[in-house]
């Protein structure tokens, strides 16, 4: 058996308490006896021989926490009989399944009744009014500074903004808004690339554990040669391509693509939860696809709007690349939606859902 590539987890049963110990943390000398490929159960043998010292049963308690680099236990002849570890195969990733969820009130109805009794005594319900909160918040809104400023363009846009006529002022303002939204899309596509990096990692973890749950698709319903992994990698590459195309467009407009515009900053705040979900090791592939769906929906709407703003601002040269980006994002959306629907309808109870 190759260390580090198995998924057997021994459970040392002691005094009625089960403690799981990852096999890779077992000290040298302890390996499952011929568990075989796909075996569900095995027994541990103490092969002895290289024992540094003999320890009592109590030392087993620490196996779950000590790494192999601290070889505190190498042999315990008494444990083999008195403390037989059991090997149980566990899924690499855990499926979302019914379990001991403790959050609901119905589970603890007696306690909740006592809580409601306290409410009746000490804060009896009266008509809800959040007027004070609203007034306070509005006072802050009225007095607030902006998140920040739009970085000033270096060339033509700046000159347009600086001219005196009402019409030109309006054009300048529109140009600044356009730059701000360009900055937003740059930030979104850059973060989107990282979101797909994280999604690919999540997919590979499931795939390497033997789960192939995403069918090939290109969003058109036609047969495709691409594997799901290749599709994910392609989408990631397209997000990166959009980011670079936007950067070049901003440079051509005389502005700085590395600056963080106000809309870029706000969009990043809005999408921070997406990163949290996809990078959480506990979330399933379906939960991650659901999250990336939010990003793709936003991205689609964002490209639609940006195309219109480019047209309004008279940047016809951006029409083609922006349309192509929108079409790509529309395909992404269909693929993600298809995969999510498939997982939820056909893979319930598996590690992917």
């Amino acid at each position, binding site marked *: 058996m190759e260390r580090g590539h198995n998924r057997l987890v021994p459970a040392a049963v002691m005094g009625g308490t089960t403690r799981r110990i990852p096999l890779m943390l077992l000290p040298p000398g302890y390996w499952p006896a011929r568990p075989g490929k796909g075996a569900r159960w095995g027994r541990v043998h103490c092969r002895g021989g290289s024992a540094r010292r003999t320890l009592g049963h109590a030392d087993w308690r*620490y196996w779950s926490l000590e790494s192999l680099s601290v070889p505190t236990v190498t042999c315990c002849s008494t444990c083999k009989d008195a403390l037989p570890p059991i090997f149980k195969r566990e899924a690499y990733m855990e499926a979302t399944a019914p379990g001991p969820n403790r959050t609901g009130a119905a589970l603890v109805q007696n306690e909740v009744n006592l809580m409601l009794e*306290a409410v009746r005594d000490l804060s009896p319900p009266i008509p809800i009014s*959040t007027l004070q909160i609203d007034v306070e918040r509005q006072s802050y809104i009225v007095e607030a500074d902006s998140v920040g400023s739009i970085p000033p363009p270096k060339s033509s846009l700046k000159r347009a903004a600086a001219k005196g006529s009402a019409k030109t002022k309006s054009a300048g303002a529109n140009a600044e808004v356009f730059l701000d939204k360009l900055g937003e899309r740059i930030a979104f596509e850059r973060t989107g690339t990282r979101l797909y990096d994280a999604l690919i990692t999540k997919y590979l973890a499931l795939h390497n554990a033997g789960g192939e749950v995403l069918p090939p698709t290109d969003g058109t319903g036609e047969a495709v040669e691409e594997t799901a992994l290749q599709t994910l990698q392609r989408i990631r590459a397209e997000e990166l391509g959009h980011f670079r195309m936007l950067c070049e467009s901003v440079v051509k407009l005389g502005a700085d693509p590395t600056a963080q515009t106000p809309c870029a900053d706000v969009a990043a705040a809005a999408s921070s939860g997406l990163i949290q979900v996809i990078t959480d090791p506990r979330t399933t592939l379906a939960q991650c696809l659901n999250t990336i769906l939010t990003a793709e929906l936003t991205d689609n709407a964002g490209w639609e709007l940006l195309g219109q703003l480019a047209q309004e601002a008279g940047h016809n040269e951006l029409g083609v690349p922006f349309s192509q980006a929108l079409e790509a994002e529309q395909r992404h959306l269909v693929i993600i939606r298809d995969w999510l629907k498939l997982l939820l309808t056909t893979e319930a109870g598996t590690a992917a859902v």
Partner: protein
Amino acid sequence: MGIDLLRDKGTPVSQQRMSWKDMVGKPISKLDDDAFTRVRIILMNGLELDSLRTKQVALRMNRDARVQLAELMRVEQHQATTINWLIGADHSPIETTIGYEQTAIEVTASVAQLEPDTYLACGYRYALLEDFDHLYRYAALLDRLEGKDANNIIQGYTDIVPARPTIAHHRAPEHDLLRPYGSDAPLATKLNAVTLVGGEYQTHDYYMNIGPLFADPLARQLYAEIASVESQHITHYGSMLNPDESVLEKLLVSEACEVWNYAGCLEQESNPRVKAIWEKFLDYELGHFQVALKLFKELERRDPAEVLGDGRLPPFIQFESHRRFVRETIARETSLRKDGVQFVQEDAEGASSIAYREAVNAAGSPSSTVSHTYSWMPGTELMRSGVKAA
């Protein structure tokens, strides 16, 4: 448990090593783990951080113990990391806050019942009613800002109602002080006070760190207000500690406090994985205690029994709902106020506190505003029948 502080050696400090991966293990489940597992995690993180704080002060005040203190602090740092990183990323900052207040309430209620000194017990009950009120205010914020039910975190163990209103917690500094315990105080009294100081310190520091992360001005205000009260609580509990104790005496009590609390957590933990951590760290702390004991004997040339008595641990904090005790305390002592180190009735409160309160509440009370007309209801106040839907 039968632990004897003067005899049990624990794990030698030289063998206390953890990798980054050991420290960053699997977090608990917000949904599935018992609320008291989170309570114990929050409490023990607070104690580890206070243990670090105590040693940092000792480092500045004792030339001979510098190396040993540095060695202990390295392990304490990694223990604190291991424990604090057990909180899952799906806890929003307000949800974690709800966990902090539940910890303050249930731990303080237990300590108040364990405390043999009647004056200090009153001090615990006094601040208990304030942390209890904070839970109500934060529950209102969680409901009205994030649309979440605080009972998803509380799990029915703790009531969500007002007690002494937060608007009345703001006292002039001289009225935050208590009379300290004496040098002849039983070990239980010392451990109780150190535990609560550590808990409040952590809560204060957490609120100070996350308060500015909120966009909502009401949330920023509420965290500013309650962080200020938690700072008062640090003074309140910190002033219970005997100021005449030497630095190494404080180190000894701090280590005993960690042993006592880890043993209590180990005895009552329901999550096997977390229980194994308590077990391991209990042995670590027994090892730390041996270092402190040696320093105390060699540098101070004093008998540890002066500080520790017979070395046996007092009864543990009970990690369970203290609903009945809290309700009785609310009924009896909500109207208490402070005048210097005395607990007095509302009409005898120190005048300087009233003047201070008028100043800080001059432009409104965040805790009152955020909870105006709030009554807890399972599933949030939007479940109330009077709330109109389209």
